C-alpha cells in the first residue's frame, strides 16, 4: 500500500527558503503571489493490504521520526498509484 507524506513548517515558524522564493517570484512580476512555503514529500510503500493497519504504521513513523512536531505539520495521502 503506497502513501505520500507531505511535510510543511508550521504556521509561525520562519521559512526563509519560502520567503526567498516568494521574493524572487515578486521580482519576476508575479505580483499576486503570497505565502510561499517550502515543504517536502516522502513516498513509501507498506507491505500490508489492510489500510487501517498501514495508516497506523505510517502515522506512528511520522510522529516518532519523519516529522518534528516542534516545527512541522504533516498530512498522509494514500497514493493514487494504488487505485
Amino acid at each position: 500500500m503506497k502513501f505520500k507524506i507531505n511535510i510543511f513548517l508550521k504556521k509561525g515558524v520562519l521559512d526563509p527558503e519560502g520567503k526567498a522564493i516568494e521574493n524572487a517570484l515578486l521580482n519576476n512580476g508575479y505580483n499576486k503571489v503570497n505565502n510561499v512555503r517550502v515543504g517536502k514529500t516522502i513516498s513509501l510503500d507498506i507491505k500490508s493490504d489492510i489500510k487501517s493497519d498501514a495508516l497506523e504504521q505510517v502515522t506512528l513513523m511520522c510522529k516518532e521520526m519523519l516529522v518534528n512536531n516542534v516545527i512541522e505539520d504533516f498530512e498522509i495521502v494514500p497514493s493514487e498509484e494504488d487505485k
Partner: protein
Amino acid sequence: MRVTIITFPGSNCDRDVSVAIKKITGKNPSNIWHQENEVPNCDLIILPGGFSYGDYLRCGAVAAHSPVMKEVKNHAARGGAVLGICNGFQILLEAKLLEGALIRNSGLKFVCKQVALKINKQIHSPFLHHFKQNDIIHLPIAHNEGNYFADSETLKQIEDKGLVALRYHISSDGNSFNPNGSINNIAAILSDNGKVLGMMPHPERYVDNELGGLDGFEFLKSTLEQLS
C-alpha cells in the same frame, strides 16, 4: 575523568574534541561508533559537530535514532552529563533530550565566524560553574541550521526555569549579534537538571591561542573539573 565521544556517520569534529580533551586531561577519551549498544561507564558523553547522515531528513534526525542513543538517554536519565556541540545539539533536540528545535539560519547562509556569548547562569550546572552571570566569552560558530526555535509556551518555560545557558551578544566589533535569527538570541540550552547542554558554538576549536583563543579550553576544563 572519563569522557566518551560518539562518532556518527558524517561527524567531523569528533577528532577535534578528542584532541581538546586529551590536551586538558592528559588522557585519551573513549571514542565509540554510533552502532554500539553500550556506552563505557563515564562522567561525560559528548556528541560532536558535523553533518551526521548528511543532514538528511532534518539535521540530527536520523542520528537521534541510532542504536547508541538509547544508552545516551539512559545515561542522561541517571543524571549523567551530556554535551552536544553544533550537530550534537541538533541530535539532542531530535532525541528530545532538550526542548525546541534548530531551523535554517534566517539569512539562509552558512555562518562561520567568532561570536561573543553572554553567560546566563540561573541554575546549577557543571557546564556553568566556572562562570559568573553575564560573563562574556568568545567562541566560533559554523552552521547552517542554528536558528533556535520553540513555541511561545515552551520558550516561556525554558526562560522561567533559567535553562538558557548562552546568548549571542554584541561584541566589540559590533556585528556578531544574533548570527542566525535564534529566538531570544539563544545559543545554548540546558536540561532541567543542568546536566545536558546543547550549544551551537564550538568550544573544542578554541583550545589554543594559535587557533583563535582559549575560551573553549577554559569552558571544557572547568566542566571536566566539576564532573570528576
